[in-house]
């Protein structure tokens, strides 16, 4: 039996899922100040009717880190940047406690300027004087050569042992220094709090005698063993939308081009499935308007949901971005979006007479309740449609760097709209009709998020960069750097094997060895380096991954 728990902004959902069927569901209001208790409350409710020994796996999607970053309440951390030449210092507006160190590395990983240790010492004195206990060190091209970062870390460990150090090269092997700096900084500021949460969950599960696998859902729709997540708290951001997208994927027909709308009380999360694979945010997760190296689905959230309040001001109808109460048909005080759809399309949701009465009252003497609901429906459908169209366009307008990619550019042909979340039943059928495409609202649509978490499998991405002239290779994750044994005869096949081996090793460490056989290469680049008219070496970039998918025991959902 599998348990999935999805902590949302308003409610936390939980399901017990077994052999294609949802056995139990539960829902409690989320206490943002004590997410651990909310999770345990849901867990205890789910366990009431189950034998604990039947539970084989628990997956949590939490908002702990997302909230921490949004409220800026993370641990105060000094960001030490080694940018070398290039953009001006004011381009890096990431931390209030940012310090710049001298030193430089280029795109080939060659050291251009040494680290200024004396300057580092002075910076550390300032950091200590400010009472800061944690630092993140990130150098430009540190992903190609982490020597300066390591040298700085070793210096700090020796002279300032009280400081904890996070290094950018450990966080990501991808290009983009500001994103690496941001991700390293966010990792550092959330590390303490996240580890406390993991400790508490760990303890609570032991107290309950649960001895099963426990995973955390990541922004890329994959899971991560609870213990492994300690080093990478940032991976857990935006796991809510990831849970709903994985839920939609679990309920939908395979291989479709679809749009997923998770319509809740006051927000709608929209994601795209291309040939049945969720679309990723090409620039990584954007946290507090800053791009990061966190792999995340391309999800757009808009402040519009079933409980969104309706107002009429001097004849002008508006759908507000806030909620006063539940819909009138469920006993709420005033008319909401759900009431308008209920009334307009005779949906018989809750008590339709209450919907009609609330709309009648709001419409006043200037317009009829039918005119009001028609206007609200038009506003809602148009807004959703605009966002969806915009997302297609954005995907179609992704940059391309090869002739092949430009010539073979595809257009997005929408085949299905998948609705999940409580309010989707009212809105999705009308949206689908307007967009002239079929729709799916599964019987489990209301708990698709928790279900998605329960059945999601672990994911892993490995990136390898090889330079046969400098004889250096770097592997991510883990910031592994080494020297090639056979640079002269090194070929793409060697690079593939090397990346695959790293994937298997990391997979084993993370307890996901059984999934590493299902990996696929998503990037294979090789370039000849020419000096004069001769080849002086080769550069390889190879990427291999275990894509988002489902655990082996998941064989679909019974209809």
């Amino acid at each position: 039996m599998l348990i999935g728990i999805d902590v949302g902004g308003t409610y936390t959902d939980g399901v017990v899922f077994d052999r294609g069927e949802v056995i139990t569901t539960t829902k409690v209001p989320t206490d943002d100040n004590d997410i651990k208790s909310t999770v345990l409350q849901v867990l205890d409710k789910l366990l009431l009717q189950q034998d604990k020994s039947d539970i084989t796996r628990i997956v949590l999607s939490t908002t702990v880190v997302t909230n921490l970053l949004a409220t800026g309440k993370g641990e105060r951390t000094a960001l030490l940047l080694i940018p070398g030449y290039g953009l001006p210092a004011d381009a890096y507006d990431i931390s209030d406690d940012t310090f710049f160190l001298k030193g430089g590395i280029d795109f080939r990983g060659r050291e251009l300027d040494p680290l200024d240790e004396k300057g580092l010492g002075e910076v550390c004195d300032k950091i200590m004087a400010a009472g800061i206990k944690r630092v993140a060190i990130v150098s430009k091209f540190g992903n190609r050569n982490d020597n300066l970062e390591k040298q700085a870390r070793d210096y700090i460990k020796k002279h300032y042992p009280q400081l904890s150090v996070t290094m950018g090269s450990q966080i990501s092997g991808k290009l983009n220094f500001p994103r690496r700096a941001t991700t390293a900084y966010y990792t550092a500021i959330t590390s303490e709090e996240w580890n406390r949460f993991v400790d508490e969950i760990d303890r609570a599960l032991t107290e309950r005698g649960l001895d099963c696998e426990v995973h955390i859902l990541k922004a890329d729709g994959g899971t991560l063993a609870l213990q492994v997540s300690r080093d990478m708290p940032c991976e857990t951001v935006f796991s809510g939308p990831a849970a709903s997208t994985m839920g939609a994927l679990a309920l939908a027909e395979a291989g479709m081009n679809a749009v997923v709308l998770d319509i809740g009380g006051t927000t709608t999360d929209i994601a795209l499935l291309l040939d049945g694979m969720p679309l990723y945010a090409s620039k990584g997760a954007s946290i507090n308007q800053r791009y990061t190296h966190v792999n995340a689905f391309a999800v757009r959230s808009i402040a519009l949901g079933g409980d969104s309040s309706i107002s009429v001001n001097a004849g002008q109808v508006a759908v507000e971005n806030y909620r006063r109460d539940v819909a009138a048909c469920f006993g709420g005080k005033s008319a909401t979006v759900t009431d308008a759809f209920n009334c307009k399309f005779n949906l018989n949701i809750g008590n339709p007479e209450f919907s009609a009465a609330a709309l009648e009252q709001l419409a006043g003497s200037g317009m009829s309740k039918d005119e009001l609901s028609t206007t609200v429906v038009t506003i809602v459908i148009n807004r959703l449609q605009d966002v969806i169209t915009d997302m297609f366009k954005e995907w179609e307008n992704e940059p391309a760097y090869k002739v092949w990619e430009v010539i073979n550019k595809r257009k997005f042909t929408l085949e299905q709209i998948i609705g999940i979340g409580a309010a989707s039943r009212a809105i999705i059928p009308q949206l689908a009709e307007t967009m002239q495409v079929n729709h799916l609202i599964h019987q489990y649509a209301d708990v698709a998020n928790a279900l998605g978490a329960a059945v999601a499998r672990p994911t892993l991405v490995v990136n390898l960069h090889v330079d046969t002239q400098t004889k250096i290779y770097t592997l991510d994750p883990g910031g592994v750097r080494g020297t090639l044994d056979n640079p002269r005869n090194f070929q793409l096949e060697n690079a593939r094997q090397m990346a695959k081996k790293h994937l298997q090793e990391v997979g084993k460490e993370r307890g996901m060895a059984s999934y590493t056989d299902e990996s696929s290469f998503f990037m294979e680049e090789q370039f000849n380096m020419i000096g004069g008219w001769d080849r002086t070496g080769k550069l390889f970039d190879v990427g291999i991954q275990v894509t988002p998918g489902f655990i082996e025991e998941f064989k679909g959902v019974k209809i």
Partner: protein
Amino acid sequence: MKPTGILFFPAFDWAISPTHPEREERLLYTRDQIFEEGIMDLPQIREYQPGLATDRDIARVHFCVPDVAAQITEAHLVSAGSALRIADAYMEGEIKNGFAIIRPPGHHSKTVSHGNRGFCNINNEAIMVEYLRQKYGIKRVAIVDTDVHHGDGTQEIYYNDPDVLFISFHQDGRTLYPGSGHMDELGGPLAYGSTINLPLAPRTTDTGILYALEHLIMPILEEFKPELIVNSAGQDNHYSDPLADMRFSAQGYARLNEMLAPDIAVLEGGYSVQTALPYVNMGLIMAMAGIDYSNLREPDYDPERMRENPANLEYIEKMVKRQLQVFRQREEQIANNRKTRDRFHHIHKQIFYDTDYIHEDQSVQLRLCPECAGFRLIESTAQHRNGYYYRVYCVSIPANACASCQAEARSGYTDMSGNDRYDLVYLQDRVNDDFRSIDIKKEAEKVL
């Protein structure tokens, strides 16, 4: 404030040959640098996706022999199409300026294209300018060629067009490919002074180039009043370029673009792929986006080695003075040419395609019209690499041609359409956006 548009198309799967300077690796380190800097994430920058040019876009500028498909690869369509895309973004007001970092390059391609010259088959800037003239009705354009090699293709295409100002500074043609771009190449009889060349001595530094920019190029631009300024942005004036011998730096390139303030920059040459391009491209982007570039420099930059020779500066000052004078006398000179010259102006030339080893023999007749800038009748012969010997006849009607020139030129096309001296007869009518050709042996007309 509107962002700066960047279209980065490195064509990682296109090369002239594996070890050629125009190879896959050329913009690899530029990619590494601009991606690592995260400059595309900045609010001052908007990245654009490549586009595709059509055969018509190309035929608006070139007579491709025997046809467009024979002269290009898909990479050329993407490269030219990308220039059009960034130009559209500029004209639609989405961006304050734009930089197309694209390859393959184009500025050595002339009106007739029998093959590849100086790494170029089709001229990206000219295709862009004619596209903009057709689509948005702009008339006056300035193209400033900042590549170390003389932009002989662009110069030839606009040599007789008084509405396109072409300025090129470059390493003196007596010391470098393509060997042209001398002081006395000043435009055709009716477009005198709208072509300005500044051949610079080898080893000219930032100081010399920026002097010419400030004292010649900027004043000319101010007086010419173009609706659009294009930087044909080669990066091989750099001190580390393996194919040339100048002493320009990344800081110099940034300062140049800050002062020039081009509306659109299009990458041309530049083959110091590791030591120059990552930094020069950063400099261009930063300058165009108004980002402080004082912290930018090449790792091996040594200001001591980059001091200008006083004698050279004096030489540049003299050239600047003379060319400014020529430019200011252009209207007088054109009026005089109109009065004194014959009805047609004849030119005969030989063009060598260095990449493809093709020798072209060309004779041009330019109608010296009292009303407009005239039209061109071009007869061209060349033996292609496949051994076939082509003889073609081309009629080119510019966008600003008067009604009688249009009629005369079109009848020239009709008159030649059965002439078996030629393999192909072409019509390029920019006024009506009509591009066609006749295969004489097959007696088949192709309308693009």
